[in-house]
């Protein structure tokens, strides 16, 4: 199992994972679960009625807009990086934050490496399951490696053109 890191202000902390990530072929256990989008669409009502917290895993080729009306009922959304080089999850996270107004946890899962940490934070991810054995200190360093950014994104960082006017 990969560890779970979470953003806490400027810091990166190791967090207990209270969710169980449930594969489609497995039975739903007790407690808080993360399920696939298809499973959520068929079993979501029942799961939510049980009073537990629900997260949805969203694959790179799935449209996050399909979750739009359920987002207020979800605790987390976990965009999947099937490969490090597959950048669709960045758009998924950006849309969750900017367009769909999701305020819960957005967790990076799959082929998650420290080199991507800065981009992930900028696109609105606030939780990460690194697959490369990175430590929280290394993760934090990767996020803070660049002092400036040129463009607006889903985070609150002021871009260079705002800094220049300050």
């Amino acid at each position, binding site marked *: 199992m990969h560890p779970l890191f979470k953003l806490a202000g400027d810091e990166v902390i190791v967090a207990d994972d209270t969710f169980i990530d449930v594969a489609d072929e497995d039975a739903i256990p007790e407690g808080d679960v993360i399920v696939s989008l298809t499973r959520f669409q068929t079993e979501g009502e029942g799961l939510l009625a049980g009073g537990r917290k629900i997260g949805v895993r969203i694959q*790179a080729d799935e449209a996050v807009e399909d979750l739009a009306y359920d987002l207020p009922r979800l605790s987390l959304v976990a965009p999947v990086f099937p490969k490090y*080089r*597959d*950048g669709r999850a960045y758009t998924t996270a950006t849309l969750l934050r900017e367009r769909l107004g999701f305020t819960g946890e957005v967790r990076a899962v799959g082929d998650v490496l420290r080199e991507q940490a800065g981009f992930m934070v*900028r696109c609105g991810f606030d939780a990460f399951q690194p697959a490369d054995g990175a430590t929280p200190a290394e993760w934090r360093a990767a996020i803070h490696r*660049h*002092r*400036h*950014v*040129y463009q607006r994104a889903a985070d609150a960082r002021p871009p260079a053109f705002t800094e220049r006017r300050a």
Partner: protein
Amino acid sequence: MYRYDAIDREIVADRAAEFRGQVERRLGGDLTEDQFKPLRLMNGLYLQLHAYMLRIAIPYGSVNAAQMRRFADIARQYDKGYGHFTTRQNLQFHWIKLADTPDILDRLAEVDLHAIQTSGNCIRNVTSDPFAGATAEEVDDPRVWSEVIRQWSTLHPEFSYLPRKFKFAVTASAKDRTAAKVHDIGLALRRSRDGTLGFEVMVGGGQGRTPYLASTIREHLPVGHLLSYIQAILRVYNRHGRRDNIYKARIKILVASLGAEEFARQVEEEWAKIDAPTNDLPDTELARIRAAFTPLAFETLAPHAGAYELAKASDPALARFARNNVKAHKVAGYGIVEVSLKTIGATPGDITAEQMDVVADLAERYGLDDIRVTHEQNLVLPHVKLDDIPAVHAQLAATGLASANINLASDIIACPGLDYCALANARAIPIAQHIAERFSDADHAEKVGELKIKISGCINACGHHHVGHIGILGVDKKGEEFYQLSLGGSGAEDASLAQILGPALPANRVAEAVDQLVEAYLRERQGEERFLDTFRRLGMAPFKEAVYAPAL
């Protein structure tokens, strides 16, 4: 040129430091080559046949004298004393050691240069008109908008892992010197009838194994909405571009498979959902970027340059150089001087450290400290007083850079080919050299006139063979190098894709075949027709016969 401020410098410095850390992890054994490869490829470092190749970004092909001298220093200290300018207006060093790359990047950063996004599946170096700021044709300075895109796309968090590489070209003149229609996005600045500036947005052009000309998806995008609109295009591509097959992953395949109209509809739909005021660049920043381009102190001169005219009258070599390499400038008494990197017998685009130093000196002394790189792998001194051209010409001649062959048959684009590149099927450089030698008689070359020959050593088409008046593609036939000729391509404003002439030829037949094509053209041409015009009028038949009939 655009003057960096402290923020621009810190962004480049931070990226260089990040890469130094990655190289140290690789050299220390913490990263395998497999893990390191995508990291080095985000920073222009390729592993080629003999050594590492480092590709340095030259945003919109603009460098100053200090930067050119730095290239020369790096060529001497870390390479074999020369460098290679590319069709992306970049500079490549082909003999680099991995352990030296962090120091090279630091030395580049000292003069505001970097290798950010010169490879990888991200937004690459933005190319533009090498005559920007010097030609009277342009409706606005395309470098300003190129710099806007450069900043926006640098380390873009959402668009750094696209399905495939992504290339922008920006032009602002009726004459297109950027090959905009064979780019992922080509932007052509135009002024509408009511005087507002806008972009014609062309999407889905490209070369490679499946060439396409770009489709216009918007005739007139108000310039202020540039960033939100290209964000919409990139987002549609990032989500829907194919990722299952590297050869079908460019945006041109998505545009072709959806159809340009449907693609445009999806972009417009996405754009309508983007909050433009947050995502477009504020006018104040646009104005800041515009002002950060060094204002040039042109002198008020008479349009008639007496010394220049006299010198031309007495020096036929200078007169020839003036006819072929000097173009009209927007300011009276100035000229745009093209410096050919196609000396006959040399490697297209190659330049020695000593030559770089000479060009830097000339730019500083005579050229308002401005140098450009063209996508045709030549250099430009965009602002030279006409009366200084004799001196510039003499100093170029002394260093072997005065070939008066711009746009002529020996001004050949060629990729590095099998001499360097791990992907190539065949050599490109020797073929270019053999063809150029056939046109070493300058009178003959001028009589033939504009002829764009472009050579690629493999189907990836880095040598732009699809848009050559004569395109040449190296193929491998059972271990032997063969060459497929095609005719009628153009990367300019009259863009078209070349059509295959006939069966591929062995290496020793290529230069002869080019001769035969040229002879056919000279027989058939009417009036001022270029080779391309004659081909377009007559079609393939007379050319095919010229090359293949003698063998029958």
